[in-house]
């Protein structure tokens, strides 16, 4: 029997090209906001978890040491969680596991990337004897997967344009988002530059600087602040290797199993009907239908129809990324935690202008070549039983 766990504090920095602050100062922005939200001081924190992409990306080795002051971590156990773009989701779950296991009462989970200080394309393009030097970059990896999805599902090409518009219009409601394009249209997305056919410029995420932090506590400590808690109803991570014979990267088995496990914990048997809002890791617009299907919010082959019918728009039945999502800001090391934190804000009723009507929300993160998957279900009400 384990404990009920809740998120009681959320903080984030503005996502942008942040040349006016150091990495430490940018991290501190989110930490300060999360601690104030939870109404705690550093003396209340038992452990700190840091989420970060590879050191190579912005050139600081062992940032968990460099950032000890910024995170208030001096004298505390610090764990660096390390996957791909999903890392923030894994860090949130790891922090919750510490509380659930009774190893800590209150955990501060911190995440950041400062992409303007490094060179991602270079860091992602190191030569290895097993791969030819293709000069494809991140989009060059995901674009063929998207083409395969389109072919399998028979989706019309405007689906990708519509998702790009939906998320950018949502971002206008989120002051922390990097990209603000209140006048964006489907035609503008359609006519934007082709990068990796079939991915166009406006169907792609930006490269951002930004940070995020959350406070996770056991149930004895939740509910003692004026602001409501987000209760964790289910959480799971799954990983598959990027290279195994018979692998399906359009609908990875690890993603399916990750979601199924979290739903089982949360007592969800019909996720599309029982979840009110989803914050999904969508770096390219077509990943909205791809993930809707992968995590069981739509039938296989039918994810694009939810987009077509407007169900995933801000005022739809299942809003996806009311924050504007990854397409509107992508500080990669923090992006996963931002999804998890935005889900928590929604069920706490603290999402501001991008608040939707939500009692139960999904936070989702993906990393690598769709190898790493993390997902949690959070709710406004305390779960009936700890799982």
């Amino acid at each position, binding site marked *: 029997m384990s404990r009920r766990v809740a998120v009681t504090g959320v903080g984030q920095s503005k996502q942008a090209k942040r040349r006016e602050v150091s990495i430490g100062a940018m991290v501190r922005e989110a930490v300060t906001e999360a601690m104030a939200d939870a109404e705690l001081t550093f003396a209340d924190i038992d452990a700190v978890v840091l989420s970060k992409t590879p050191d190579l990306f912005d050139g600081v080795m062992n940032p968990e040491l460099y950032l000890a002051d910024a995170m208030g971590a001096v004298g505390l156990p610090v764990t660096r969680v390390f996957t791909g773009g999903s890392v923030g989701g894994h860090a949130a779950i790891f922090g919750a596991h510490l509380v659930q296991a009774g190893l800590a009462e209150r955990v501060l989970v911190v995440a950041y990337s400062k992409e303007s200080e490094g060179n991602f394309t270079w860091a992602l*393009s190191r030569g290895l004897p097993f791969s*030819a030097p*293709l*000069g*494809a970059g991140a989009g060059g990896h995901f674009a063929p997967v998207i083409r395969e999805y389109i*072919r399998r599902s028979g989706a019309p090409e405007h689906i990708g344009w519509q998702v790009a518009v939906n998320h950018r219009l949502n971002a206008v409601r989120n002051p922390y988002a990097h990209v603000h394009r209140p006048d964006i249209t489907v035609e503008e997305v359609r006519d934007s*530059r082709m990068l990796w*056919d079939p991915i166009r410029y406006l169907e792609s995420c930006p490269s951002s600087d930004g940070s995020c932090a959350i406070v996770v506590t056991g149930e004895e400590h939740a509910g003692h602040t004026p602001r409501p808690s987000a209760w964790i109803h289910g959480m799971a991570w799954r990983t598959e290797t990027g290279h195994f014979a018979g692998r399906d990267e359009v609908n990875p088995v690890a993603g399916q199993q990750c979601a199924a496990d979290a739903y089982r914990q949360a007592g969800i048997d019909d996720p599309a009907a029982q979840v009110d809002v989803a914050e999904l890791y969508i770096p390219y617009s077509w990943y909205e239908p791809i993930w809707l299907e992968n995590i069981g919010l739509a039938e296989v082959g039918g994810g694009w129809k939810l987009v077509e019918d407007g169900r995933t728009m801000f005022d739809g039945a299942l809003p996806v990324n009311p924050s504007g999502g990854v397409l509107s800001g992508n500080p990669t090391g923090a992006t996963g935690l931002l999804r998890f934190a935005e889900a928590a804000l929604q069920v706490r009723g603290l999402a501001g202008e991008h608040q939707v009507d939500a009692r139960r929300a999904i936070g989702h993160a993906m990393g690598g070549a769709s190898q790493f998957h993390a997902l949690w279900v959070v709710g406004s009400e305390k779960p009936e039983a700890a799982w």
Partner: protein
Amino acid sequence: MTEPITTMPSPFRMDYTYVAGTGRSVFLRGLAERRLMARCCAGCEQVYLPPPEFCSRCLRELEPPFELDGRGVVSTFCVVSFPFPGQRIDPPYVVAHIQPHGAGTRLMHLVREVEPEDVHIGMAVEPVWVSDDELDTSLLSIRHFRPVHYGGADA
């Protein structure tokens, strides 16, 4: 009034010693001889190219290596359509996931000697190897893949 210092570039480089291991070494040595060496898992009958030592599904050691001819089909692809620093080829060019016949894995490589708009999923392709003096223990030994025609029909 002097401008504040906002950035200070500090480029660095690092050299790695890559240890391929006994399993992967078979594949890399094969490339230097224009041979694509694959291995099969006796547990799930899946074929790996390049082969590791153990099956990622079954975690059992793969069977002895055997050669594939490298012909296969385009599983899916993208067209890199914009210039960026460090690019070796002028865009547009095709980067494809190629499923070699007899393999359960895909190779990512260039598809050339065809206009990008004529590339399609299911297109039959074959490897184009570099000349003898350029052969190496790396995938650079395959310059690119190109369409192959079996009496006009796709494989």
